[in-house]
Each structure stands twice: as structure tokens, then as C-alpha cells.
């Protein structure tokens, strides 16, 4: 049985003003995670990846509506709304936020912030909690004495490590990381990613890594899903996505990554993602796709298997598989 199962997750946000209306920020997102598995969620800004992982922990604002299921060890943790998901936060699923610049409380010491959830969830209290906080800091490569410091005394990389230590305080089974290395310099990025990989291996921690940065996801993850306009358009093993993508967006996305050693010009994808406050007819990627053909304008593509553990939502896949037109 999978550790984490997301089934048909939808998130809508109310639009402000008296006109009303909603933005369909995440549509039908589904994936599953096994213990120790590292899964990437990739896409441009605004594609719904951050919305998705916030939804996994129910961390949405009051303007949000949600549908679908998020199951941890078989139990849907969202069924009772905010109150019910609270018990699962940090103990089952924990999160590392982007830019630990502001994700840590500036007026509280690091050690206190790490120990706080332990006491609340009954994992450890008082001196034991403090000791454990020190151990967690050591585990992420910071000296235990740093627990007495304030966040602003740390560098960006150290803050991110401290955030990771904090996330592990209640021994969660799943760690969600939202752009954990953006705004860090390349050397530090590599260290953080290596840390996450190591923790995942040593602790059996399942990892969902959200990023727009493809080399990051390539380094860490076994599998990934590519999101566009709130939907997953392709998912599969990392190697397959890189070498044999079946969705034009995935292909263009990987091609747009600058090659450190090559002389090729950086290819960018022209155009912008679609508005999400109205229903989209046909394929959402069509306006920017280089391979669009007739069905793309009217039929919305659904995810279908194109290989072992590999799915893509594109009409082209039907063409190639036996030239059948449904």
C-alpha cells in the first residue's frame, strides 16, 4: 500500500470583488508515493504545484474550496476540514517552505522553534525536546549549539537546513519541499539537495519536491510529474521524462534548460499559461504547442498510460499508439 495517495484533487480560489467567480487552480491531481520514494512536481510559476502541496496539508486560505482525497496510510486526512487535518500535520506529513527567509519566526530561537511541535504532539517535552532539537540540527549539518541563535543570524543555506531539521521534529513519513533551493546559490543548492536525498535514504522518508528547476528534480527524484495549468500532463520515472517525454510541454521544458557544457542557445517556450478563471476547451497547452493538431482544439486530453509507470495527457499519444482515432 502506498504511503501517500492523492486522488483527484481539485482546488478552487474565490475571486475577490462582487463579480464572484473562481479560479480552478488545481484540477484532478492524482499521484501516489511509497515509503522512501522521492517524487518531483515540476512546472512553471502558477501551474498549481504549490497549491497542490499546500492542499496536501490543508494549508489553504479561506478563499479556497477543495475536492478529492488525500490518503495517508489509507485514511483520508482532509475529510473533516481544517480541524481533522491538524492532527496529521508534522506527525505524518511535514513541509519545508520556500525561502526560509521568512518561514522561520524572527523573534524566536531556532531550538525553540524545532522543539515546539514536539511538545505539542507529545513526541518529547522540556529537556528531552531540546536535546532532540540539537540532534536534529547535527543531522542536517549544523552544530547543536546553534539552537540558541535567532534565524537572522544564519545564512540562507543554514536557515534552510534548520527548516529541514524542524520539519523532521515529529518523525513524519512524508516531507513536502516547496522550492527548497530557490534563492540559494549553486553550491549551497547542491548541499541541500544532497541532504534531502540522504535523509530520504537513511530515514525512509518519502519526499515530494516542488520546483521549476529541472536539474534540481533530476538530481534528487526517482519519479516526477509535470504540471501545466493546474493539471498533471505527464508523469513517470525521471530518466524516461528526460530521454523519452511524450508530452510536448515536457519535451520543451527539458529543452529549455541551459546546458552547462553545450553551446546551444537556450530555447524558451513562447506564450503564457492560460487564464484559470474560465473553463478551457480542448488542451490547455494548445496555444503554445508546436505539435498541436485537430483534436487539440475541442477535446481535453486525459492522462493515459504510454509505458510502464509512465502516463501522459496528450492526443499525440493516441496517434502513435496504433493510429486509432477515438
Amino acid at each position, binding site marked *: 500500500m502506498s504511503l501517500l495517495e492523492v486522488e483527484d484533487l481539485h482546488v478552487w480560489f474565490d475571486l475577490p470583488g462582487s463579480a464572484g467567480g473562481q479560479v480552478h487552480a488545481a484540477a484532478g491531481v492524482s499521484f501516489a508515493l511509497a515509503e522512501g520514494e522521492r517524487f518531483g512536481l515540476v512546472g512553471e510559476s502558477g501551474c498549481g504545484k504549490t497549491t497542490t502541496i499546500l492542499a496536501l496539508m490543508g494549508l489553504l486560505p479561506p478563499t479556497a474550496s477543495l475536492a478529492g482525497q488525500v490518503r495517508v496510510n489509507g485514511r483520508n486526512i482532509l475529510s473533516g476540514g481544517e480541524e481533522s487535518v491538524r492532527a496529521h500535520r508534522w506527525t505524518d506529513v511535514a513541509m519545508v517552505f520556500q525561502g526560509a527567509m*521568512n518561514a522561520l519566526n524572527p523573534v524566536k530561537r531556532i531550538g525553540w522553534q524545532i522543539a515546539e*511541535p514536539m511538545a505539542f504532539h507529545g513526541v518529547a517535552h522540556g529537556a528531552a525536546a531540546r536535546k532532540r532539537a540539537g540532534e536534529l540540527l547535527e543531522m542536517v549539518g549544523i552544530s547543536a549549539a546553534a539552537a540558541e541563535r535567532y534565524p537572522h543570524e544564519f545564512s540562507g543555506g543554514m536557515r534552510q537546513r534548520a527548516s529541514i531539521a524542524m520539519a523532521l521534529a515529529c518523525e513524519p513519513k512524508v516531507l513536502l519541499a516547496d522550492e527548497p533551493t530557490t534563492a540559494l546559490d549553486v553550491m549551497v543548492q547542491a548541499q541541500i539537495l544532497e541532504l534531502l536525498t540522504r535523509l530520504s535514504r537513511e530515514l525512509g522518508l518519502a519526499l515530494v519536491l516542488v520546483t521549476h528547476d529541472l536539474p534540481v528534480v533530476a538530481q534528487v527524484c526517482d519519479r516526477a510529474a509535470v504540471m501545466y495549468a493546474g493539471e498533471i500532463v505527464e508523469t513517470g520515472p525521471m530518466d524516461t521524462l528526460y530521454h523519452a517525454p511524450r508530452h510536448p510541454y515536457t519535451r520543451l521544458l527539458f529543452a529549455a534548460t541551459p546546458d552547462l557544457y553545450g553551446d546551444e542557445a537556450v530555447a524558451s517556450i513562447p506564450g503564457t499559461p492560460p487564464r484559470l478563471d474560465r473553463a478551457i476547451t480542448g488542451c490547455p497547452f494548445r496555444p503554445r504547442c508546436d505539435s498541436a493538431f485537430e483534436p487539440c482544439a475541442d477535446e481535453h486530453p486525459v492522462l493515459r498510460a504510454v509505458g510502464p509507470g509512465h502516463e501522459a495527457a496528450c492526443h499525440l499519444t493516441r496517434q502513435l499508439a496504433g493510429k486509432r482515432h477515438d
Partner: protein
Amino acid sequence: MRSADYLIKRGFFALVTVFVAITINFFLFRVLPGSAVSDLSRVPKASPQLKHALTVEFGLDKPKWQQYLIYLRQLFHGNMGISFANQQPVSHLLIADLKNTIPMVTVGTVAAIVVGMVTGILSAWRRGSAADHVSTNGAIVFYAFPTQWLGLMLLIIFAGTLPAGGMENPFLFTAEPFWPHLGDIAQHMVLPAATLLLTAYGSYTLVVRSSMLETLGEDYVLTARAKGLPDRRVVRRHAFRNAMLPMVTLVALDLGYIVGGAVLIEVIFSWPGIGLAMYDAIQQRDYPMLQGGFLILTVAVIVLNFAADLLYFRLDPRISQ
């Protein structure tokens, strides 16, 4: 910025501001106007010896720049001249008055801060609700009413049930035991302090509300929520402390308003404090008292501002490291 740097910088600023206030005072009272105002020795009904003594003491026959230096020296010794109204030393009179003003203003201000914080947090927490609108608009309306009008209204409503003026009942024996005496003063303090509360709390409500809303949008609040902590704990342990920091700054900035309000309140309720003393000084053309009052009030505000800087420094670790 290292801690010593910050404190020194703010302390120096306070000192310079005091100096600026003293200079403005000298300029306004001794340089600009005619001798009716600037001549400190023109104490009505004073003996020639007194007049002569004052002339020597303040160098009133010397050029202005020398008078300025003498003025500074005299201030350093706490000498602010003689009151025109009753020939007592100005500093003694004003210190006594200040002792009456401080408790009343403190009670009123503290009450305003507490009420402002409670209503501000409530408004922010229930943003957009009816409670929020009532609270916010109420704050605006009370802040808009002139302080003297609020005092008069309280007088109209409560005259009869609460004392209408003064600080204590003059008919009580002076040998009255301590607690009933204190109770008497407290009774007299209710209306003036309540007026200060009503006039001052509004700005605190608005600032706390705005600051709280800002804090509730910060990332670390989401982190705290993500840890599974219940809302009340998140607000108490994470949001509150950060949201209240601007309060310290605001209370300091608002002191000028509080002091102005205190003057009006003391006039209405005949509270024998430094505000009433200044009012009497205006009526009686008692210029030394007026000068002295301005200086003491201004220095008090400057000192309190510096104290607020110290408090902020203590509360925000980002500055003290």
C-alpha cells in the same frame, strides 16, 4: 547594527532634540517678542530686590547670545525663573503639578493601550465580519471626536454620580488615612482617565488591526499552522509578539497627541496637573510658567520616546544582535 551603536545613536538623538526644544523655547520667549514676554524679572508686585536678583541671575541686561548660555546654565541647575502669578519658583510648581498629571495620564493611556489591543486583535481575527466593522468604525469615530467634547459629554452623563472636577475632595481632612484618600483621588480620576481612554484608544485599534493582518499573512504563521498547532496558540505564540512591535513605535509617536489631550482634559476637569498649569499661565499671562511647562512636557515626551526605543530594542532581536 551592534547593540551599543543603536543605543548611542538613539540616545544622542534624544539629547539633540532636547537641545533643539530648549533653543526653540529661548527663541520664542526671549528673542522674538517684546519685553512684556521676554523680561523674566517683570514679576508683578515683586520687590525691587527680587527684580534685580532675577536680572543678574538670567543676565537680562546682557546681549542675547550670552543670555542663551546663561539660560542653559540655569536650566542645568533646574532654575526656570519665578512665576508671575504667585512668585514661587517655576520648577517647584511644575514638578508638583507633574506629580498630579502622571498618574492620571498613565492610567488613561494604559487603559487605551489595552482596549486598543483587544479590539484591534479581535477585528483582525474576524476580518470582514460585523464585529470588525463595528470595532473599526467605532475606533475611527471616537478618535475623531474632539478630546474636550468627549470630556464634556462624560461630564454631562456622569455629573452627579462621579466627581465633576478637581483631584480630591477639599472637605476631607488632610489627616485622612491613606486608603480612603487614595479612593477619593481614584474616584476623581475616573472621568479624566476615561476621557483619555476614549480619545486615544482608536488609533491603537487601527494600528493593531493593520499590524495583525500583516502578521497573519507572514510565512512563519503558515509554518506554525503547518506544525499542527491550534489557531489560538499560533496567534499567541507567533503572531502576537511580532504584530505588537509596531505598537511600541506607535505609542511613542502618539505621545504628543496624548500630552495635548491631557492638557484639554485637565482644563475640563480642573485636574491640578501641568496641563491646567499651562492653561492658567495663558489666562494670567504668566510667561515663565508657560515656558517652563512647554519645556517639561517636551522633555518628558522626548525621554519617553527614548524609552520606547529601548523597549523596541529589547523586544526585537534583529536589532539587538
